[in-house]
């Protein structure tokens, strides 16, 4: 008996994990893009930190 035999369930799980991985990668890229877009905006001001105000 081989434990390495791939079951149809494993293929399904691999597909799901791959899909989720791609979605997460795209989400990270989008948040990065959003950050760049926000800080590139002329209106953007760095929020004053507590240390700077004291």
């Amino acid at each position, binding site marked *: 008996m081989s434990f390495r035999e791939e079951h149809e*369930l494993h293929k*399904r*799980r691999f*597909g*799901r994990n*791959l*899909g*989720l991985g791609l979605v997460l990668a795209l989400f990270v890229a*989008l948040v990065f*893009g*959003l950050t*760049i*877009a*926000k800080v*590139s*905006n002329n209106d953007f001001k760095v929020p004053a930190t507590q240390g700077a105000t004291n």
Partner: protein
Amino acid sequence: MSDATINTSTNVQAAQPGEAEFGDFFALLKPRVMTLVVFTALVGLLAAPIGVHPIIGLAAILFIAVGGGAAGALNMWWESDIDSLMKRTSKRPIPAGKVTRDEAFAFGVTLAVMSVVMLWLATNAVAAGLLAFTIFFYVVIYTIGLKRWTPQNIVIGGAAGAFPPMIGWAAATGSISIESVLMFALIFMWTPPHFWALALFMKGDYHKAGVPMLTVTHGRKSTRRHILVYTVLLAILAVGAAFTGIGGPVYLAVALVLNAMFLRDAVAIWRRDEVMAEADDYRVEKKAFKLSLVYLFAHFTAILIEAALAGFGLGGWA
């Protein structure tokens, strides 16, 4: 927009947790309905007088779409019992035994919260608040509250589908205005004739599921009358909108042609009875349903064209 698919199986299988494929979770988002959400939200965003950074605009549309999809997943979670009874919905992931109800609930709630928070961070609180209200309205007020209680369910549910252009507009401007309310009203008035035309030729499904669709509670003659009344009101609104901030000559031409066609079909539906409809397999009702899809797409495309022309000083009546 309805996500009409005709299936033949009504077998309900017990799903095992963790067995679903990626595509099953995607199907929970009602991708066909999502296309309407994406398109109308995009028009709302682009027609707004204030421009947004392309990445912020892309993120806004994406999070609005995810929020709409989350509402769809929560709708399927609540309605899995009646979905299994209707041919049209029996192949959805829960009744088909691919996704468990708990998985659908967790998936829907997670995406709903995430989409609202991310839309807030990407754009502003008004857009995020509207998205949160839309999800709440569709899931709690419509799906859980009123759908199984009133034959006006379609009218009420139509409001949820009408919010995306308002959210897109708010994402760009940070506010609600008469133009965005008009886009809301256009979808709101369009939904009842669109859905009731579908209900006329998808007969039996809603009755079997015990959903008080107008065709079941008030009869098919009354439904035909309702379609005509709503189409007349829709035509007045749609043509009238041509003379507002979102309209112009291009929009007016589109509105005149399509409302004349839609009114012609609504009158034909009203004049027919069940014997005539069954004789030609609901040809007129099916034609009106298909036209309604073109109708909405064309009106929003015309709004988009007017907004694009305005960029060259050509849009509107000025």
